[in-house]
């Protein structure tokens, strides 16, 4: 009895780790690989792992031949590479030392607790990204400053949407809408500001680059389904950006 509950606990912790990794922005392939390595390290035989972008299912057999199945549903992503790195390091440590399920869970909780990132740094990140890419695509310094100001607004929208837990697609639409209206406003108010350059700087904030690279990597690793799901997400994000900008054109066209 004791043995079975231990397997169950272990499986549960491993699944928690997998879910966290997927939420932080890891490829499906990496998550499957990590789970399978962990199962091997704990000698959970015949582990069958299936994961797509929104679901992980694992079946393992303990040494008495009893089967355990667990699944995790992933509803939202919060890209957090700091946590991803820590989780990756944890899985390496666990594979070599194989602590008990309780210790493993404690270590996992510890990482989740301390791997938060300061909001100020993220705000700086938003401003630098839009300003930097505005300059990169031949914008002037004025454009970069305008793009930076709009980036602050987008950051605030993101904070608000995270609090209200509204889905990512709508966030992209609203952000793009605000970016568009803001860009029109600055381009109209300041002579030396260019609408297109400001807008490009802000689009780089929203562009689904990580999703697309992950999608292709998953597809290349033979995981066509997970890859396609992620690919569709990336396309829809781009569409949401386009629609948001279109609405901005209509809104400003009506107002001006």
């Amino acid at each position, binding site marked *: 009895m004791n043995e079975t509950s231990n397997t169950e606990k272990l499986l549960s912790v491993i699944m928690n780790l997998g879910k966290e990794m997927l939420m932080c*922005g*890891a*490829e499906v392939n*990496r998550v499957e690989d990590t789970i399978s390595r962990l199962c091997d390290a704990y000698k959970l035989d015949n582990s069958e792992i299936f994961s797509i972008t929104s679901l992980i299912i694992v079946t393992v057999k303990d040494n008495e031949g009893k089967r355990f199945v667990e699944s995790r549903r992933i509803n939202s992503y919060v*890209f*957090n*590479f*700091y*946590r*991803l*790195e820590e989780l*990756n*390091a944890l899985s*390496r440590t666990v594979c070599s030392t194989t602590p008990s399920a309780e210790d493993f869970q404690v270590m996992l909780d510890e990482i989740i607790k301390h791997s938060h*990132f300061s909001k100020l*740094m*993220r705000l*700086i*990140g*938003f*401003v*630098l*990204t*839009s*300003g*930097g*890419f*505005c*300059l*990169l*695509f031949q914008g002037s310094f004025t454009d970069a400053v305008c793009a930076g100001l709009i980036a602050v607004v987008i950051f605030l929208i993101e904070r608000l949407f995270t609090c209200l837990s509204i889905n990512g697609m709508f966030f992209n639409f609203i952000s793009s809408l605000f970016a568009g209206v803001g860009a029109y406003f600055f381009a109209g108010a300041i002579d030396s500001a260019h609408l*297109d350059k400001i*807008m*490009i700087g802000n*689009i*780089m*904030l929203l*562009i689904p*680059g*990580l999703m*697309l*690279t*992950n999608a*292709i*990597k998953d597809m*290349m690793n033979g995981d066509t389904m997970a890859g396609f799901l992620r690919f569709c997400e990336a396309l829809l994000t*781009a569409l949401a*950006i*386009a629609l948001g*900008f*279109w609405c901005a*054109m209509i809104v400003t066209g009506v107002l001006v």
Partner: protein
Amino acid sequence: MIENIVGIIAAVVGTVGFALMLRLRKERLPVIAVSTALCYGLYLLCIHFSVAYIGAVFIASLFAGFVSEFLAIYIKAPVTVFLTPTILPLVPGSSLYYTIEAYFQGNLDSALLHFSNLGKTIGAILLGIVFVNTIMKCIRNYKATKKPR
């Protein structure tokens, strides 16, 4: 020359910002800055020696891929952590914007042109990543077969 240097600095600033957005730990930022500068510098160099635009993107993407794989092995962190920021300056944000703008202004010819440019650039980037990914996989599998059991 001056505008190339400004370009590289802008690329580094933007990428570091993006890395902060993705909550990358601060110790990695200098590494990302250097790899981005080299990657974008290589792209500009290719353009300077009149390599076609798509070819330059492909070469830079290959370089970014190899650098990220190397860093991932050296620092023992997932490849994504290094690859996503490094490759970002090559991502055609401007093509996406001009496609949208031209399309909604009813300028379909121009929209199609920008859209095909967008597709080609993304294709070149992805091809570079896939290429590196496959090579590294081959090396890993080869090493695995060599390992005594």
